[in-house]
């Protein structure tokens, strides 16, 4: 029986939004699926060299973010608040035995997840192919469409 297939478009580059694509991709691979992640726009930040574990989360405009004390939006906008929120989130993840983004990315590559970087957004944002981690292919919408048309699961995140 041919493996089921899944594609995921990873379009966000914040710490919280980097998790779902990588969790689902590694899990899909562990469940014998052929998985492709297409990194576009801010999702490219996940696969920039040395950047996976430097992603941040912003408390601004994110009322659901658990903070020790409720903070008004104007305070959330202050310098340093992003670092506070990011540090807090990472501590919570670590405490609960959650893998880091870097670990999940390595596990994804190890388990054969195909990584594609969107060449167009790289050009727009001035990202060079040499800025991206090894093992990533470079392509555009048609490449994703080709794989997506044969996949049972396609997600935009």
């Amino acid at each position, binding site marked *: 029986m041919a493996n089921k297939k899944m594609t995921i478009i990873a379009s966000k580059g914040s710490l919280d939004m980097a998790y779902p694509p990588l969790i689902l991709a590694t899990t899909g691979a*562990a469940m014998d699926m052929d998985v492709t992640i297409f990194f576009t726009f801010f999702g490219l930040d996940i696969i920039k060299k040395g950047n996976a574990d430097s992603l941040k989360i912003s408390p601004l405009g994110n009322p659901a973010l658990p903070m020790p004390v409720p903070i008004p939006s104007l305070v959330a906008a202050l310098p340093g608040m992003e670092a506070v929120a990011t540090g807090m989130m990472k501590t919570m993840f670590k405490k609960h*035995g959650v893998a880091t983004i870097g670990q999940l990315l390595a596990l994804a590559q190890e388990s054969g997840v195909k990584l594609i970087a969107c060449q167009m957004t790289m050009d727009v944002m001035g990202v060079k192919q040499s800025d991206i981690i090894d093992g990533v292919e470079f392509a555009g919408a048609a490449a994703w469409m080709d794989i997506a048309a044969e996949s049972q699961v396609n997600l935009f995140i």
Partner: protein
Amino acid sequence: MSDIKVDQVLDAKGMSCPLPILKTKKAVDALSKDQVLKVETTDAGSKNDMASWAKRTGNEILKMEEGSGTFTFYIKKTT
């Protein structure tokens, strides 16, 4: 069913989703057909996750034990 012969043990206690599944997959891949992996987890979601994983990969959960926040799975590699 109480005396299952275990070939390999995986301690996934303290790990959160998706690590118990990823580690289980890796450990099962390293086994031969019909060998049994014992996996211990503390992730409450792993009870359903492990069943879904086994169903999808065709491996068999011979037994699942639950006790004081720990889940123990006995998984037989079927291929």
